[in-house]
């Protein structure tokens, strides 16, 4: 698999790069927890993804790059999660979200071509289409109360602590209702996420005039395989988002993280118009080997026992 990935990018003229796993700042995303360690009394964090340093390289180099590296996320262990996992991340200057989805599809088709996995159809749905079709709600206008109603109509329990946050409700309904309704042996791209779930994606106006995030995720059945953005270039907006995330961390009782000033400085200098995507290689390997648990594709995976 690794050999095929490298050959694919070599042919496309995408340069392989390496960035540090240890960083002096960590992600502010309230849903990601970083491992921390110390060097000479200074706090360092293991990266949850190589995104920020790769963007710094993009500013300096300006051409397409890819990386295969380890990423670390504390508190994530389950059938589809390991605290240490392997990520393929790449950036394409000049690509919009749709062109990058095309390339993800091309690469995935290549990697699974010799396997029984069905690749005939890779459907594409907007987030709104997926929710309208499988949950009967419009995710851009729905209220928490309507989400609760939708859950109870479909016999889905209300998790303890889930109350009036619409995005948390949408995440819950996505895992419990929308994704389970998809065919289990089919790839699905979901794109145009709600503005409130933009992360590091730029915003765009869709065909219906709705402001959405230029973000996509690839799922195989219910399992998430990749997440991509048409990258935000605006340093001021990015700083604002980091600050909002830190405020949300404090709300959830989590420690705010120090903002990565180096990536903001790079954005300020000028990030090329580009799209980027991160793809979980262990999860892709699960699919190639028809494994139900991520430990099955790892030599020495961590277990919860």
């Amino acid at each position, binding site marked *: 698999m690794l050999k095929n990935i490298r050959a694919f990018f070599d042919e496309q003229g995408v340069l392989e790069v390496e960035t540090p796993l240890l960083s002096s700042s960590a992600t502010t*995303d309230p*849903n990601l927890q970083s491992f921390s360690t110390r060097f000479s009394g200074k706090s360092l964090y293991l990266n949850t993804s190589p995104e920020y340093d790769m963007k710094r390289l993009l500013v300096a180099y300006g051409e397409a790059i890819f990386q295969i590296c380890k990423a670390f996320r504390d*508190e*994530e*262990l*389950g*059938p*589809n*999660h390991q605290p240490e996992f392997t990520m393929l991340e790449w950036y394409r200057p000049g690509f919009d979200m749709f062109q990058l989805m095309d390339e993800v599809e091309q690469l995935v088709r290549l990697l699974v071509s010799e396997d029984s996995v069905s690749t005939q159809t890779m459907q594409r749905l907007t987030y709104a289409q997926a929710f309208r079709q499988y949950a009967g709600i419009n995710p851009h206008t729905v209220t928490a109360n309507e989400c609760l109603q939708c859950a109870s109509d479909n016999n889905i*329990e209300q*998790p*303890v*602590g*889930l109350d009036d*946050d619409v*995005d*948390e409700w949408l*995440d*819950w309904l*996505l*895992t419990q209702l929308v*994704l389970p309704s998809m065919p289990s042996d089919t790839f699905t791209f979901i794109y145009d996420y709600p503005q409130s*779930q933009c*992360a590091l994606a730029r915003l765009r106006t869709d065909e219906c005039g709705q402001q959405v995030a230029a973000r996509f*995720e690839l799922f195989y059945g219910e399992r*998430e395989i990749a*997440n991509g953005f048409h990258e935000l270039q605006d340093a001021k907006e990015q700083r604002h988002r980091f600050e909002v995330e830190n405020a949300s961390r404090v709300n*959830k*009782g*989590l420690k705010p993280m120090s903002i990565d000033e180096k990536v903001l400085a790079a954005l300020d200098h000028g990030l090329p118009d580009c799209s980027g995507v991160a793809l979980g290689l262990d999860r892709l390997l699960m699919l190639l080997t028809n494994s139900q648990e991520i430990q099955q594709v790892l030599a020495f995976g961590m277990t*919860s*026992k």
Partner: protein
Amino acid sequence: MASYNTNEFKNGLNIMLDGDPCSITENILVKPGKGQAFNRIKAKNLKTGRTLERTFKTTESVEAADVEERDVEYLYNDGEYWHFMEPETFEQHAADSIAVGDAAKWLKGQEPCQMTLWNGAPLSITTPNFVELAVSQTDPGLKGDTAQGGSKPATLETGAEVKVPLFIDEGDVLKIDTRTGEYVSRA
């Protein structure tokens, strides 16, 4: 009051759910990709033995159940309570019929048991897997029927009723599997 965060959830952790002490038997992380994570757990209600399912938003916390296991020895029944003693400390515990439950029919005296305490009070008793008890009453078996492997009811010295092979007589000491309530062999 002690509590556990969802990131401390693991099998065997004792928590309070719906006012009852429960022990986690399964803990699964549910996460759509980026975005909010949830912990879906299965837990056994330590009072009723029933399994229940519950989901928590991660970063939530839940009240801890003050549950502990003790090695005890059965002493006697005073008509209302079953009395047990910890052989190490000689500390005694009186358990009511709800806590003792089905264990009562296998207790004669001096059996080493496991006692689960909740807030210091007996919650349940686990008897040894095998006990040896004498037959106090059973009808005589008919000669010749043994080959067919037939069985008949017998009452043991503790009052428990078990099915035994036809060749068993009153006064025989039997080995019983307390988990199934079945006859194993003559002791």
